[in-house]
């Protein structure tokens, strides 16, 4: 900036700046003396009612005092809970009706995802490392053994729970109109649950998993039309190197490729597919009118035959 344009901004009155600054500062200090305690008091008041803060109200969108409205909103305004309706039939919460098995299956799936992700931090799906990783998990990783045990037993429990869930749905006739489609979705979930468990079996790369998967996939050789030992397979040009089993294992024996494929199906493929079907499943439970019962009994004499 050129030298001659430099002014003190004070219209030529020397010393004006200093006085203005000092009086200004004095004013500020005076104001602070009264404002600070007042603002502090105000702040304390605000903080003593945390539910009134902007931060809080931006997260929680309604009050929580125990009114019917808030009970409903607590469910409806929460993304995780809003799968539920606000209210259900009073009998539908009876444990003896649903046995809670669908919910328990889902909870176990959740536990398995959590423990599974933690296991993935320590596991390499390669023939060199896989088995050692499991040993490492068992002996050196803090809580590694507990982690592995929980993942394994939760998987077994999930298979049991899903079978019992299906059993309950059958016994209560809950697959009948209008829930037919959700039953089929359920059957797919059952298959996916078994496949999840089965693909995980190979991952420790020990004798147990290896032979179980060998036995299991050997059956694929015998697939009609598509297996090299199955009916009409050879006639269609199937060999051990191009049939379905080869596709499943990524080879003609259970080896490194099979381990990798197992791993990817187990940790990525099937969980994603299963999640999608679960979303549909839960959505349909709601759309089909909520849980099917316990419904009032219907008498045979009351059934109106549909006109054909």
């Amino acid at each position, binding site marked *: 900036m050129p030298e001659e344009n430099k002014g003190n901004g004070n219209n030529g009155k020397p010393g004006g700046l200093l006085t203005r600054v000092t009086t200004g500062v004095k004013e500020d200090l005076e104001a602070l003396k009264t404002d600070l305690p007042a603002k502090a008091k105000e702040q304390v008041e605000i903080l003593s009612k945390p539910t009134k803060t902007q931060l809080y109200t931006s997260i929680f969108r309604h009050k929580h005092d125990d009114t*019917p409205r808030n*009970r*409903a909103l607590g*469910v409806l305004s929460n993304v995780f*809970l809003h799968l*539920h309706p606000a*209210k*259900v*039939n*009073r*009998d539908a*919460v009876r444990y*003896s009706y649903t046995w*809670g098995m669908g*919910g*328990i299956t889902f909870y176990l799936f959740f*536990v398995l995802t959590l423990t599974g992700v933690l296991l993935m931090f320590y596991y390499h799906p390669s023939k060199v490392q896989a088995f050692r990783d499991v*040993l490492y998990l068992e002996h050196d990783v803090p809580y590694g053994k*507990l982690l592995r*045990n929980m993942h394994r*037993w939760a998987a*077994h*429990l999930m298979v*049991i729970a899903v079978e019992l869930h299906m059993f309950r749905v*059958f*016994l*209560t*006739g809950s*697959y*009948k109109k209008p829930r*037919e489609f959700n*039953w089929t979705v359920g*059957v797919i979930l059952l298959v996916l649950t078994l496949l999840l*468990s*089965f693909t995980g*079996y190979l991952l*420790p790369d*020990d*004798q*147990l998993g*290896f*032979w179980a998967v060998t036995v*299991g996939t050997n*059956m694929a050789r*015998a*697939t*009609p039309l598509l*297996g090299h*030992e*199955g009916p*009409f397979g050879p*006639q269609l040009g199937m060999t051990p190197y191009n049939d379905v089993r080869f596709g499943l294992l990524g080879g003609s024996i259970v080896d490194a490729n099979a381990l990798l494929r197992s791993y990817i199906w187990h940790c990525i493929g099937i969980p994603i597919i299963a999640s999608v079907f679960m979303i549909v499943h839960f959505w349909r439970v709601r759309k089909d009118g909520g849980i099917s*019962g*316990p*419904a*009032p*009994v*219907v008498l*045979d004499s009351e*059934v109106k035959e549909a006109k054909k």
Partner: protein
Amino acid sequence: MDWNQLWQILSAPDNVPIIAMIPLLAFYIYLGGKQALANDKLITELEANPALAKTHHRKTWPFRPGWQKEVHVWPFLLRVEFLAAIIVTIILMVWSITLNAPLEEPANPNLTMNPAKAPWYFLGLQEMLVYFDPWIAGVVMPTLIIIGLMVIPYIDTNPLGSGYYTWKQRRFAISTFLFGFVILWVSMIFIGTFIRGPGWQWFWPGQTWDHNRLIYEVNRDLPDIFGISSNLWKGIFGAAVVGAYFLIGGLIVNGLFRRSNPKDYKRMSLLQYSIMMTFFLIMVALPIKILIRHLFHIKYVWITPWFNI
């Protein structure tokens, strides 16, 4: 009695879930059965007394005046779910602390495990390998189970028993499902886990696993018994036997079904009826094949150059 052997099988960590499943299944059959019987009693009462049926609340527990029909999910449902999650977590924790997941020697393709068993939930299918060729036990059966389960809602035309436990109103459906689930699925898993030993041979609980035991079982094929030797005639004969099974079996089941479930019979379309018949007859064929193996040592019924049944 070889207690050590028995203990080894029972305490194999991967077998524990099955041991847990048996009492669980028993408990839930009881729980469902109890409610079914209570409902059936109510149904009988209401059927006998149409006046009561007009006024009655129609559930086995009385509805008190003043009660609300609906309750809030929060807290009444969520607390149940929360409690269930806690209980499951505790069970899982205790189980995981007390029992270690199995880890055997590193995988070794040159060292065959004997017996080599599939995971427990597939042992029913593996057990079927004794009686059927792998393409049936390993591929066709699972496919049929999946499709068979999926078609259930579309072939069960009985409108009764939707949303409550009952036995009286759904005898055929429930007994068929119990047969498939408990007898064919669960008990085969049980046999596969606790009975089958080396060479997939039958060892009673407590019997020592003898790795060298050989069984000279002379199995014959059905055409051999009838002295049929030419391949062509074997094929034709087998097809005739299987066809006859479906025809005669179908006629018998048809005769029974339309008498015991006349309303369902009337309601079902031809397609529904034939799908039900097909799945039902195939399912019943399993124990029949098992029986003729044990009674007459018959291995195959139908022999062709491409497949044997």
